[in-house]
């Protein structure tokens, strides 16, 4: 296996970090819906926390994406 095909493989593997991010965002949004269902009057606060949580969970996927892009477009 030469270097470029290894890089392509690595790019594919790096982008698997999206799985974790997807699970994380799913948990965050699910819990936010639960919280809003429990306390609908505090929806504004939950929305802010949801955005932060989703952004933090998403950042792992973004790191993976960046790594894979680095490998693809060296």
């Amino acid at each position, binding site marked *: 296996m030469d270097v470029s095909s290894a890089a392509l493989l690595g790019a594919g593997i790096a982008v698997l970090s999206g799985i974790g991010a997807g699970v994380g965002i799913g948990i965050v949004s699910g819990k936010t819906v639960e919280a809003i269902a429990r306390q609908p009057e505090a929806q504004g606060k939950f929305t802010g926390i949801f955005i932060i949580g989703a952004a933090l969970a998403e950042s792992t996927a973004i790191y993976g994406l960046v790594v894979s892009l*680095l490998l693809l477009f060296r």
Partner: protein
Amino acid sequence: MLRFTVTFFITIANLFVLYWILRKVLWDRVASFLDERSRKVRGELEDAASAKARADELKDRYEALLANAENEAEWVVKDAEDRGRAEYRRIVAEAEAQADGIRRRAEERASFELRRAREELAGEVARLAVAAAARIAGRSLGGADDAAEAEAFIRAAESGRGR
């Protein structure tokens, strides 16, 4: 791809320029405009409130004046009534007093007349008695002392009877 270039510094400068211009053109301008409007609206509201307060005060004063006038009118009527009644009483009393006086005077007069009439009658009776006596005695008893004597006799008799 992840190459660090001078674009980084240019973008920082760009962001500062954009921030500076937009703050002048957009944020501060709109914020001061909103402040000015809220101040204006508040001022107008205060004006309206003060105008209303003044109108209320005028209305209160007017109502007070009206109530005062009603009171005064009532008082005037009552005063007039009182005075009328007092006048009436005074006039009636005066009239009664006057009538009393007239009656008393009339009574006095009447009693005086009666007394005088009685005295005259007594004198007449004495004279008639003397004349009758003279006629009976057949002589003239026309002397003054005889007449006086007779009168004294009648008076004595009268006073004796009157007692």
